[in-house]
């Protein structure tokens, strides 16, 4: 997979040398950071044998809540409120999935619709402007040569990696995704851990939503359309198995890089956004097909 990413970069770089400029690379990494955070949350959901279709709509809800609270209570409160909103939406998902035992696909599909509706209702369909200028730094600023969102995303990846590979929670996530019935029979409190999975996904979406809001310095109830699908694509393209139990932070990172470089590269060579979607769709199917073909040969 790293070879693929380098290959893509070389191809695009040769067509448009601007690809390699510091500005462009900074842009790419900044643009990818939102998807990266969503994909991290999605990784937890998919690894555990579930899925979270609501992360795109959560961006909108988080954006609106963050902006509204920020205007009344200030910068820090707004940021905290935004992340918290994501966590609460995730908790709602978790309760419905773990306690009411609704399949994750359906539960998060419902949240996808509901969260978008909530965002539109809370905001009246209108964007919320007038946020403090310093907020923009979160989305547009730099730490040294690195855009702040990129730094946050990298930190998030590191944290997620530690959780998944070195904690009880992480191990149980893999176990649930690998064989849920066996997990129950092995004494794992599957219901509680599932809830934790969706809260985690919601918190990552909350963080992503706050950063995105900073980038456009306004609360926008229409953000995030289709992003949930890209987050799933990132997990799967990198090698994660959609039924759970296989994958991780590394594979998701690969998927994010592929999508990010493709998107940026195709923009630089002026390919329409519609065609980009076709390409990404083809890659998703192709990547999974290659995986399954390998499985079947065993």
């Amino acid at each position, binding site marked *: 997979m790293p070879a693929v990413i380098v290959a893509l970069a070389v191809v695009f770089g040769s067509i448009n040398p601007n690809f390699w400029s510091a500005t462009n690379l900074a842009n790419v990494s900044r643009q990818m950071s939102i998807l990266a955070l969503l994909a991290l949350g999605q990784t937890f959901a998919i690894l555990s044998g579930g899925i979270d279709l609501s992360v795109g709509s959560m961006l909108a809800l988080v954006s609106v809540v963050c902006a509204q609270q920020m205007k009344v209570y200030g910068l820090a409160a707004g940021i905290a409120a935004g992340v918290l909103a994501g966590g609460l939406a995730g908790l709602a998902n978790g309760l419905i999935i773990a306690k009411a035992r609704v399949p994750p696909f359906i539960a998060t599909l419902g949240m996808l619709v509901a969260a978008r509706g909530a965002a539109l209702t809370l905001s009246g369909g209108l964007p919320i402007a007038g946020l403090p200028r310093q907020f923009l730094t979160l989305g547009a600023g730099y730490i040294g040569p690195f855009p702040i969102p990129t730094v946050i995303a990298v930190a998030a990846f590191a944290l997620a990696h*530690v959780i998944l590979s*070195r*904690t*009880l929670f992480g*191990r*149980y996530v*893999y*176990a649930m*995704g*690998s*064989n849920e*019935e*066996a*997990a*129950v*029979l*092995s*004494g*794992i*409190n599957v219901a509680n851990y599932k809830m934790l999975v969706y809260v985690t996904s919601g918190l990552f979406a909350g963080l992503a939503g706050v950063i995105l809001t900073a980038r456009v310095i306004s609360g926008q109830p229409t953000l995030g359309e289709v992003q949930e699908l890209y987050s799933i694509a990132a997990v799967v393209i990198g090698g994660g*198995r959609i039924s759970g*139990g*296989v994958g991780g932070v590394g594979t998701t990172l690969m998927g994010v890089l592929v999508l990010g470089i493709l998107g940026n590269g195709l923009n630089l060579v002026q390919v329409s956004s519609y065609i980009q979607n076709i390409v990404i769709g083809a890659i998703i199917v192709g990547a999974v097909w290659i995986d399954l073909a390998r499985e079947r040969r065993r």
Partner: protein
Amino acid sequence: MDIGREAPILQAEGIVKRFPGVVALNGVSLEIRAGETHALLGENGAGKSTLIKTIAGVYHPDAGEIRIDGRPARIRNPHDAQVLGISTIYQEFTLAPDMSVAENIFLGREPLRIRALSIVDRRALVERTREVLASLDLQIDPEATVRHLGVAQQQMVEIAKALSLDARLIIMDEPTATLTSHEIDRLFQTIGRLKQRGVAIVYVSHRLEEVKGIADRATILRDGAYVATVAVASTTIDEMIRLMVGRDLKDKFPKVNVEPGDEVLRVEGLTRKGILRGVSFRVRRGEIVGIAGLVGARRTETARAIFGADPLDSGRIFLHGKPVLVRTPADAIANRIALVPEDRKRHGIFASLSVRENVVLSGLRQFSRKGLLDLRGERRRAQEFVSSLRVATPDLEKWARDLSGGNQQKVVIAKWLNTNAELFLFDEPTRGIDVGAKIEVYRLMGELVSRGAAIVMISSELPEILGMSDRILVMRDGRICGEFARADATEENILNCALRGAA
């Protein structure tokens, strides 16, 4: 044993079928004549299921020949079998529940009004279905949705379907397992009608009284080998049992004799509507209590209830004399109870986790220091178990999926050893594993009880039960119908109890 001079419609000779680690059929032969009802008998694991699946085209034999009407036949898949006139009715019906009877019977062969457009001629469909059903004197509405029919009627639809395929040989696998006695009578009537039409039936069943009632001849298998073919009319049930069972038990079971200590587990009146009917027994330290019984006796459900995996309507569980409430597997583990499940693929092993991760999973908390897992400690512990249980794996990080069945079972057992349990519930502990691995599991069980654990072992292999248990409980229909001490137990009296419910 000459029934008649009719030529056999099916002859299977010298059928050999191997699976990784086990020889399921070792030169088995079977001869079926037109119009006869031929029972196929044997214990669990004798090879009956493998044999019928080979004839039905689901498996390919590694050696041997099948002849239809005297001519050698190659049955590469179920379709080939169907074309040759062989139909199989499994325990799990293969009907489409949301389609009608008529649609099911003629699925894939519907009469078409306009061939090019695949438009079905509904009237012809219903008419022909009526004909088929009438020929069996069945009062079933061809347009009824299958889902709304009772089990017995669904079975009739399966039989009608086989007939409509011009089956000359119908294999029925445990056909009466889910029928009431009234429905069984109807089934036998139908079989009678089939006989009149010259259709042969291979009847696989444990219920020897029924076999006596319906079969002409019976073939007995044991341990994958052909034992004998008898005329049912002139063979008693006892004789049949003896043929099914007789073998040497010596030395395949490294039994350790341990003086039993205090009571570890006592259950009283475990009841769950429709499933458990007041199960009571006790197990002492150092004891291996075997639970025998046939499929459907609800032995697995008993173990799961004790382990907290299934709910109970009433009943009490005592550990060391004190009542405990075990509502979830986590409760069970906290009370030092372990369950090694019957279906390891679905309930025991984590295929996409490494051997190490599997082994440490149930006791993972021991390795958590300040929130982080001590991977080195995990590796050390996993290595200990892999060595002591002789799990064949090149390294600890290999996915559990890549191990053989026997080694997977050892990994599952290792997982439970890691939880410091003192009561082990083993459900079919050696199913699907090779002889060498089996012996190691037995040795392990011996070690456990010598160190003070108590074991409940559910098994469908009589030799195993007899070889390893200190005491044997026999279950039938959700209750315990008999108990034998090691010295008094024989295969015959166990099987008798299991089959007839008489203690």
